[in-house]
């Protein structure tokens, strides 16, 4: 913490309490911010970049730090937006057919649900299926998959009521289940 005051601004002195808050925020929540970004971007390097961008945005808004009551929800919202901005720039296409064929092959070979789930192709398939959901359902589901995010934090990040989060997540899982079943039976839409 000794060098904390030096990095935020050389030219403009800022209250050391704010600088300490910023550094504490990074140390405490960087992993969480990364996971929120990763849930959106599905790429480690992009997620780390989004985490960096998130804290840069925090620095720009440091005047608000003292007024933030729920730092995790606040950070999740910023990370969410940073990740979405990054995803808009580049979104590599993933072949749904290849992933579906690989998953069907695993299942035909007698692999259990956990074994199939741990396969990279299944992850790719899930990404594609989630990407095909309506935006509102996709957003709620994506954030709710981040391990430590409560529905209240998801609601705060998306700016919607908590009850809406639960409804959307439930509906998203229903749709995903239907799509996954269709894929496993080879009846999915191309």
């Amino acid at each position: 913490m000794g060098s904390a005051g030096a990095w935020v601004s050389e030219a403009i002195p800022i209250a050391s309490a704010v600088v300490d808050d910023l550094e504490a925020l990074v140390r405490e929540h960087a992993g969480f911010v990364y996971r929120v970004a990763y849930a959106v971007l599905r790429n480690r390097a992009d997620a780390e970049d989004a985490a960096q961008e998130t804290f840069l945005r925090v620095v720009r808004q440091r005047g608000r730090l003292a007024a933030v009551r729920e730092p995790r929800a606040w950070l999740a919202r910023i990370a969410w937006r940073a990740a979405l901005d990054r995803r808009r720039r580049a979104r590599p296409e993933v072949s749904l057919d290849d992933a579906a064929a690989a998953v069907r092959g695993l299942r035909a070979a007698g692999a259990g649900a956990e074994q199939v789930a741990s396969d990279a192709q299944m992850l790719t398939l899930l990404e594609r299926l989630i990407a095909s959901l309506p935006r509102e359902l996709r957003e709620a589901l994506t954030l709710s998959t981040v391990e430590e995010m409560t529905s209240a934090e998801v609601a705060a990040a998306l700016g919607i009521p908590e009850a809406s989060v639960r409804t959307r997540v439930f509906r998203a899982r229903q749709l995903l289940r239907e799509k996954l079943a269709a894929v496993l039976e080879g009846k999915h839409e191309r």
Partner: protein
Amino acid sequence: MSDKQNERFVDELLDASLARYGRGEAPAGLEERVLEELRARPAPSVWAWGWPAAARWQWAAAGVAALVLLAGVSYFTRSPAPQPAPVAQAPEAPALVPAAPVETPTPVPPAPAPHPNALATSRFHRRPEGRLGAGPRLAQFPSPAPLSEQEQLLLRYAQQAAPEQLAASSLGQGKLAELRIEPLRIPPLNSEPN
């Protein structure tokens, strides 16, 4: 596999996959790299232009509001441009403050006909002539004007008639005689309780 087994497999697979989906472990040393990045970048200036960023918007909004107010005030309080004296004017009309020279009227092109679909003209169009500010400003308010025929007759009568005669004429004699004031009758107060 039966349908029931299929359904159970899909449920388990979905649960397991979603659990893994959001399990991205943060890479080691992420916090230090974030802090290094923040140290390396110059902090965005909070005091650009010498004002805090938030205050800048407030000042800009206040400036715009002041300009609008100023424009409104100047629009509603401005005096009309000096205009040529009216052609037909009473001989006793007072002198005008700005002695505007009488110019020969130049032919004014006819105003374009309004578009048939035009619902309303601009809210900021000029006030129609003939209301406030239609004529030149006069030296005295209210402006003295020549007496009408009735006023001249009344003035002549007032100068010639005696005061009693004037009082009697303002309130007719018959009405004075009819005027009666009833004596006041106030009943005594009842001090006993009900």
